[in-house]
């Protein structure tokens, strides 16, 4: 065990794992995080806290993680490279680890022009792959990237993202391999709507034996309406939403229920794909639905 986190234990034991996302509030009060924690407790092995998602300042992912820990939920802290250089990132990881955080997801982060402070200076001192390298050295060698010894090394389970829907398609598997080489223990994918393309990607992943080197969690995101689906398709970069999904939502008498049902079906499908070790459920501003999705997908065997 590298970190001894629930998530690591679940994945190492071979049990199909579940993670879910919680969006930190744009607020100086942790009340909403506590509400989500109450609603979602027990429905997933660990809960991702996004890091100033879409480049909008929110409560920090580490602070939210500590709130979850206080309520007995296990966090996955997302760390982006957009806002901090290697000095701040390493310092924050030491702090997070001291406060009980074990799972860290290393991301490049959305460019700040997506957010409400487009004019900000970005950092990107490291990219996501370099962040993995730096954190792995902290964990395995007990050293900062500079080579300075740490008194106590952090215990970490390191994650990274993969997007099978971004281009160039062939490069996506090479990039995944690079993330594994750099230190990723688990992978969470971009939300999957185009199953065909995802299966094509997974077969390339299996061809290279990557599914045996890393735990892959397939990303899903329930859609509320055909309008959200259209928005995802047209406005969110690196997303593929097939027209059949948009049509199905448009025709549905209760689009929300249809969106949940579709997500449940997707999870059931993904479960059967060789090399998929779990799902990562993202339901921004719809967190309260996650327990229902987990239950209906038959994944209720969680701790």
């Amino acid at each position, binding site marked *: 065990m590298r970190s001894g986190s629930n998530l690591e234990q679940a994945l190492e034991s071979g049990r199909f794992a579940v993670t879910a996302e919680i969006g930190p509030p744009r607020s100086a009060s942790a009340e909403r995080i506590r509400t989500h924690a109450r609603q979602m407790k027990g429905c997933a092995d660990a809960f991702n806290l996004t890091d100033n998602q879409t480049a909008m300042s929110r409560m920090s992912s580490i602070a939210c993680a500590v709130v979850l820990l206080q309520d007995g939920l296990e966090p996955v802290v997302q760390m982006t490279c957009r806002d901090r250089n290697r000095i701040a990132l390493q310092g924050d990881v030491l702090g997070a680890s001291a406060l009980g955080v074990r799972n860290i997801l290393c991301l490049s982060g959305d*460019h*700040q*022009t997506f957010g409400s402070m*487009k*004019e*900000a*200076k*970005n950092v990107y001192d490291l990219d996501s792959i370099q962040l993995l390298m730096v954190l792995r050295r902290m964990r395995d060698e007990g050293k900062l990237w500079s080579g300075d010894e740490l008194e106590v090394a952090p215990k970490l389970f390191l994650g990274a993202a993969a997007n099978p829907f971004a281009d160039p398609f062939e490069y996506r598997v090479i990039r995944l391999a690079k993330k594994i080489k750099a230190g990723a223990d688990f992978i969470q994918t971009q939300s999957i709507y185009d199953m065909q393309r995802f299966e094509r990607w997974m077969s390339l992943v299996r061809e290279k034996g990557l599914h045996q080197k890393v735990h892959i969690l397939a990303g899903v995101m329930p859609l509320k309406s055909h309008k959200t689906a259209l928005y995802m398709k047209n406005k969110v970069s690196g997303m593929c939403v097939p027209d059949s999904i948009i049509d199905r939502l448009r025709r549905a008498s209760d689009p929300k229920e249809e969106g949940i049902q579709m997500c449940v079906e997707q999870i059931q499908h993904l479960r059967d794909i060789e090399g998929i070790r779990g799902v990562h459920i993202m339901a921004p501003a719809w967190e309260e639905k996650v327990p229902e999705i987990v239950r209906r997908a038959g994944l209720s065997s969680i701790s």
Partner: protein
Amino acid sequence: MIVGEQKPLEEIFRMLSGHERILVAGCRSCVAVCHAGGEKEVSILAEALRLRASLANHPWKVEEITVERQCEREWVEAMGPLVKGKDAVLSLACGVGAQTVQVLYPRIRVLPGLNTSHMGAPDMPGVFVEKCGGCGDCLLHLTGGICPIARCAKSLLNGPCGGSQNGRCEISPEVPCAWDQIVRSLEAMGRSDLLEEPIPPKSWLTARDGGPRRTVIPTAVISEEQRKMKGERP
């Protein structure tokens, strides 16, 4: 001007290994002024490569050319006959020049023989100092004609930090404190009032942070028709 420095010879030798027919290409503009990539440097480097080839038994066949500006297609197009049949072009222009060559000859490996350092000016013979960071929204009018973005080690916009001492920057006694210079410059022009107003957070959208930049001069853009007349592809 763009200031560059030739890469260490050993690094250039390593880059060239595995190639045979090599064209060393210089540029007569900025990098010639800073003694890094002009005609003279091209011929010295080409000679060094030939010497190395005979000493180390490399199959290198080295030719040379220097154009007026390697960042402009017209000049680079003229290199065509010499580029033909080469495995590699070792560009002694700045990174812009090297990329222009690569665009025009996509199958050839263009290798950078220089490190493009910064935008600067000669301070005294042989010494070039960074002057501008190309932020795309100049504020020299507020800072006495001295750029705090490029020349202050922290890119501070509201005066010297606590590390400024005796006109030197906290990072090194070798480095002048840009803000010390700004204060003196504004005093000299009788505009110390400009030092009093806090400058709000800057928009970096016009800098690299906003993504790669592109400048369009409407009056200089030629029409589809004119391009066709010049025989260019649409």
